[in-house]
Each structure stands twice: as structure tokens, then as C-alpha cells.
């Protein structure tokens, strides 16, 4: 800590250069933070779901609804606590300006399979007994200013009513929260009573359940139960595919496919660019100060201490840039519209932290080692030569004939 002043005065020696380098670092880390936030959406979005629930879908595709008659058969598999069914409704609010997911469910079964959703007893009872009832998550209710008793018209692009109209009206009977902060954050969906949904739609579509959600006693038993369910419907026209809820959600995100790879490629390009930029600037900063470093050594600073001093300077620069950049990225994610659920969560900060360390070592170590190896006599006389990196570059260029070899040694 007592060397902090020394490090700072090193950085402030050339204010303009430090400022410009710092600003590049800020831009780079802003981008890194944003991209990794997008990336974490691909990677660990479903971590919180655990393995106590399975999803049974039609083996061909989850968009193919399974018929309701499978329900008792699934319930008969040993080890199952509760089964519910869920059909994606695809409703648009206010002509597509508001989009949020809605699912048609059996209220009591929903409650049995998702104990994570918390709501007053009365509201649950109302949801069960109101044919056209709907419950909304707190986040969604706040967003649209809905309260119990409001009627929400939804225009479904999938389900038409028997009379040909597409507008369905749903009466809000309850607003639910999550059992903890994490679940509360995700309470941005709407559940509709299956009653009105099934009765209202065209007769040909009645009796279709959607996918089944299976809550099991023991997560360790998940593989056996999944296999047992699928076995029941083997070789029927309603073959099923049962997987953990986390895996099911991941499947959704994976549909976006190679986008994750592209995000990582960009991050790589960004990282390489800042690496180069900061590296050169650090090298320059040290080279200019070589006589000063020699003076430090004269005063009794050990070689090792001088090395640490240079490294600390690189670290301070990277850390400052990274902090400012990450704060920028966090601010940007906060102002994004809610359909981009991108957050700079812990994982992103960890990646940024690792990047700072790697960057510091890559850009700081070469000049730090140069500083460590300095001979006082040479340094004071200004006989320093160039950094190892520059020498390498110059040789490479000389080899391809850009510049004479003599000059390269000059």
C-alpha cells in the first residue's frame, strides 16, 4: 500500500496517454460485459430449476400437443408426486405491442407442481373456480398496472375460438410471487384457466393438453421415471420424450443455435484488440521511464520490487478500466427493454475479473521483466534497446523484407 503513490504517479506521468488507454479499456470491458451477459443467457439460464420436475412432450416436437388421455397413465408411474399440463397460448396484448408468455393450465395441478409460486389461499380458490380466470406474476402485473378484477383481452395467433374469433378475455383473479428473490424475478408470466380455454376453442382441438409437467419425489430417480413414462407410449401415435425441466428450457435457448458461438468469437476479437493496444501503451510507458526506474534501483529498490511496481501499474490500469466498463455495461442492461432479459450477473463479473488478471499478466509482465532486468549503468546512460516484443516484431517484418536487417539491429 505504501507504494500506491508511486504507482499513481507512474500512471499520471503521461496523463493523456493513460486517459486514452483507460478509455479504450472502458469501451472494451463494456462490450465484454454486455456480450458475456448475453452469453450467460445461453449457458446457465435454467440452473435454478433443479431436477425435481420433468417435462413430457411429444417426441416429434413440443409444439405438437399431447392429448389429455395420457394424464392418468403418466400419473400411474411410481415415484411421481403430481402431474400438471400446460399449453402455450400465444396471446398478444394490445396488438402485439405487449408480448409475454401465457399458459393454459389446470389451476389445482399447477399449484401442486409449482409450489415455488406463492399466492393467497383465496386467490388460489378463485383461480380454481373461475372458468375464465387468470393469474399473473407480480412483475407482469406491475408492468401493465393490472389488479385483481381487471379483464385482459388477448389475441391468440395459435388458438381460434369455436365461433372463429381470436380474442379471448381473461379475468385476473390473483397475482402471484416467487418463494424467493430468484423466483420473484421470474414472475413475469400469466397462467390461464384451462376451463374456458378448452371449452372455447374449436371442437377439433378440444382435449389436447399440451405438455405434461411431472413433479417427482426424488430427483435422483429422474432418469428412471423419465424412461418409464416414455416406455408407456412407445410405438403409439403419441410417443413422448421426457426430460428434466432444466434440459427442456435449455433446448429452447439452444434453438438459437450458433449465436452463442458468434458472441464468443466477438468477445475474443475484442479481448485481443485491447490486449494489443494496452500492451503497446504499457511497453511505451515503461521504456520512457527507464532512467527513472534506474534511479529507483540506485535508491535501493530491489529488482523484484521494481518489477512488482510496473506490474502493479498495469494492474491498476486494467482494473480501473474494467470496473468502469462493467459499471457501464450494468447501466446499459438496466435500461434495456424487458424483452431483453440480459443482466450482468455474478458469472459475468467473474469472467471480467479473470480477464483483468489475464490481461494484466499479458500486458504487464513483459515490461515488468524488462524493468527487473535493467542494469543501472546501462539504464542511466539510456542504453536500453527495445522491448522483447518489438524486437520480435521487427525481426518478423525484416524476414518478409519490409525493412533491412541492419536497420532492425540499429
Amino acid at each position, binding site marked *: 500500500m505504501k507504494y500506491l503513490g508511486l504507482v499513481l504517479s507512474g500512471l499520471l506521468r503521461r496523463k493523456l496517454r493513460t486517459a486514452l488507454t483507460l478509455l479504450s479499456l472502458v469501451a472494451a470491458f463494456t462490450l465484454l460485459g454486455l456480450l458475456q451477459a448475453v452469453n450467460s443467457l445461453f449457458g446457465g439460464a435454467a440452473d435454478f430449476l433443479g431436477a425435481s420436475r420433468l417435462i413430457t412432450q411429444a417426441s416429434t416436437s413440443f409444439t405438437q400437443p399431447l392429448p389429455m388421455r395420457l394424464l392418468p397413465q403418466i400419473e400411474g408411474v411410481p415415484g411421481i408426486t403430481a402431474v400438471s399440463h400446460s399449453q402455450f397460448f*400465444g396471446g398478444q396484448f394490445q396488438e402485439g405491442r405487449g408480448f409475454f408468455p401465457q399458459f393454459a393450465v389446470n389451476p389445482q395441478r399447477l399449484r401442486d407442481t409449482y409450489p415455488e409460486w406463492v399466492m393467497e389461499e383465496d386467490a388460489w380458490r378463485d383461480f380454481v373456480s373461475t372458468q375464465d380466470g387468470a393469474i399473473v406474476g407480480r412483475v407482469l402485473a406491475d408492468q401493465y398496472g393490472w389488479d385483481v378484477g381487471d379483464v385482459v383481452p388477448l389475441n391468440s395467433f395459435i388458438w381460434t375460438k369455436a365461433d372463429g374469433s381470436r380474442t379471448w378475455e381473461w379475468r385476473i383473479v390473483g397475482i402471484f410471487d416467487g418463494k424467493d428473490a430468484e423466483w420473484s424475478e421470474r414472475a413475469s408470466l400469466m397462467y390461464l384457466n384451462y376451463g374456458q380455454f378448452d371449452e372455447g376453442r374449436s371442437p377439433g382441438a378440444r382435449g389436447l393438453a399440451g405438455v405434461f409437467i411431472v413433479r417427482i419425489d426424488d430427483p435422483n430417480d429422474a432418469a428412471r421415471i423419465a424412461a418409464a413414462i416414455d416406455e408407456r407410449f412407445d410405438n403409439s401415435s403419441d410417443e413422448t420424450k421426457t426430460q428434466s425441466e432444466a*434440459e427442456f428450457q435449455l*433446448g429452447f435457448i439452444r434453438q*438459437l443455435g450458433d449465436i452463442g458461438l458468434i458472441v464468443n468469437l466477438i468477445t475474443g476479437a475484442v479481448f485481443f484488440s485491447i490486449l494489443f493496444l494496452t500492451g503497446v*501503451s504499457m511497453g511505451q510507458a515503461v521504456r520512457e521511464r527507464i532512467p527513472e526506474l534506474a534511479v529507483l534501483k540506485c535508491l535501493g529498490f530491489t529488482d523484484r520490487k521494481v518489477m512488482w511496481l510496473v506490474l502493479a501499474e498495469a494492474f491498476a490500469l486494467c482494473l480501473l478500466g474494467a470496473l468502469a466498463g462493467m459499471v457501464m455495461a450494468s447501466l446499459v442492461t438496466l435500461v434495456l427493454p424487458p424483452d431483453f432479459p440480459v443482466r450482468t450477473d455474478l458469472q459475468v463479473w467473474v469472467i471480467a475479473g479473470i480477464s483483468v488478471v489475464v490481461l494484466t499478466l499479458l500486458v504487464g509482465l513483459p515490461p515488468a521483466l524488462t524493468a527487473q532486468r535493467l542494469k543501472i549503468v546501462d539504464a542511466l546512460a539510456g542504453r536500453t534497446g527495445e522491448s522483447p516484443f518489438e524486437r520480435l516484431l521487427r525481426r518478423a517484418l525484416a524476414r518478409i523484407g519490409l525493412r533491412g536487417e541492419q536497420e532492425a539491429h540499429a
Partner: protein
Amino acid sequence: MSTLTQMREIVAMNLRSIPDRLAPSLVIVVGIAGVVAVMVALLSMSAGLSATLGATGRDDQVVVTRGGSNGELSSFLAIGSATLIRQDRAIARGPSGQPLASGELIVITEVPRPGQSTGANVTLRGLGPVGFALRPDFRVMQGRRFRPGVQELMVGAGAAQEFEGLEVGNTLSFRGSTWTIVGHFSSGDAYDSELWTDVGTLQGAWDRSGVSSVLAQVGSPAQIDAMKARLTADPQLDVDVRSQRDFFSGQSSGLNATIGVLAGIVAVIMAIGATFGALNTMYSAVSARTREIGTLRALGFGAAPVVASVMAEALLLSLAGGVLGAVIAYVVFNGYAVSTLGGGFTQVAFQFAVTPPLVLLGVGLALGIGFVGGLAPGIRAARIPVTEALRAN
């Protein structure tokens, strides 16, 4: 010497000395190459997607879907409706007098993705008897066409490349029955991401009676409006009528906008970072040459040539960076095949397309960064008082 001659001399001298400031100069080249490569790559993804989906659309064909549905997947037309649509008088007739209209059913199937346990959604399309005739670019690449009434599939070239196990002769299992892949086809557009079979066979296997959409050939694009008016006015029908081009560009616009926004944000932030890098380099280049500049000014060189020399250096370096970045983007990404979620919640396979306008855009951005990065340092160089500059070390 005239200002112009001065300018030429000083610029040439300056450029010759770039190798002496190699590493800082490379900062500009590498930094800008990174920005340009990333931006061109992102935009080439969007261009490739547009090329694939845009090529799908013909102006003289119409797609009829259920009113209000946002794609074929959520559309459903009963047999009666489909028959009624097929009889519209705008629809062209084939050689034997049958209307050139194909009622098509699509369902989503999951096929494995290499190295992942969850499958990718792929469209399985059932074609009507004239379905092939409505797609003039259709070519059988391998194997043969499917036969109606038998559970046989043809696989699009894009799907065959992106997903596993879709070779000719393989079988896929859907809904308890086995389907044989009998051929690969290419049509050069979004259909390349699909599996095709006969519509009747598909209806039977999936227990459906109607179709998702009707694709029809009209005599001329001008007839579409009249056909649209007739069908939407028909009380027996509830349909949307669009030209095929409109239909497919509607499907891709959301995705394209997303990619455009992403490319914009990334390019702007990276460009800001690179501009600071360029400024840094040019300021240190100027400070390293302070004495030289002072000498030139003392010899009678004007301020303008000095600014010009710094600008020329910055622009040349950024041009090199821009070209390098565009080349990297071209070499790495042009023709790179990817697949992502398309409009109908199924996979669309497409290739990145690094087009000349994108390369020009990238080089233009590079020069813009070079201009901004060179201007301020150039002006500073011209403003240093001669006496002070001569004393610099």
C-alpha cells in the same frame, strides 16, 4: 516550395518513417482490423439470412394462411377452405387444367444437433401434388423424390449439412412409425432447411385433416390484389393473402432487426475503443517527432502540410487495418454455414455472405476512425511553437 509540394514531401517522409514506430503504428492497424472484422462478420450474417429468405420469395406466387396467424406454423385451413382457395380464378392452370396451387401442411420435428442432447426444431412440410412444379429452383441433389402414400422424406441441403443423421438411406422415427430418407434436394432458399414429404402421407401420420397454408401460382403479380380482395371478402373464409416475397420477408424482418441492432451496438462500442487507441498512437507519434516537426517549420514548411502528414499517416494505417479486417472477415466467415431460429420457430440454415458493400462499409468505418484519430494530434503538431519544438528531446 508551394504548399502542395511541401505536403507531398512531408507526407512521403512521414510515411517512410512509420516502420521506426512499428509497435504503436500496429495498434491502429490491429485495433481497427478487429472492429472492421467484427462488424463485417455480423452484418454478413444478416446479409446471408436476407439472401436466403429473400431468395425464397417470388412476386408471382401467393401464400394464403389463416387470418391473424403469424406464420405457417400457427396457421390452419380446413379442407373445405383450402379447396375454395384453390379454385380462385387468379390462380394459373397447369398443362392438364388443374390449378397450380399446393395445400401444404407443416409440422415441427426434432432432429439431433451434433454433440447435444436436445434436438433442433426442423420443419417437416407436406407438399401437394403440384408442390414441385411451384418451385422452379428445385433440384434433386442425391437420391430421388418421395412417393405419395409411402413414408418417405426428402431432406434440404442446408438441413442435411447442419444436422446429424439425415443421409440418404437413413430412417427417422416420428410418432411410432419409420420414415425413410430417399433424397436430398436444393432450392437455394429457406426451403433448404426443411424436410419434405407428401401432404396426404403427413396428414395421415399426424392425424390432421387440413393444411397450414396454400401456395399458389398467379398469372401475374398484378392479380394478387384482386385475389386478396376476393378471398378476404368471402364469408366462408378467414385468411391472410400475401405474395410469397412479402410473406418470407415478414418472417425474417424480426431476426434481421435484432442482428442489425446487435451489430450496431457492438460496432459503435468497438469503434469508440479503437478511436482512443488511434488517438493514443498518433499523439505519441507526434510527440516522438516534435523536433523533426520543429525543424521543418523552421525551414519554412507551413502548418497545413504538417497536419496533412499526420492525417495521412493515420488514414494509411487505418486503411491497412480496415482492409485487413475485411479480409479476415471474408476468409473466416464468408460461406460459413450456421443455423438459427427462424420466423416459424424452426431452424433456418443459411450462410454468411461478405458482400462488396459490406467490405466498403467496413473500410469506410476504418477511415472514419483514422480521420478522427489523426485530426486532433495533427492540429497539435502544427501548433507547437517552433522554438519549443526544437528544444524537445
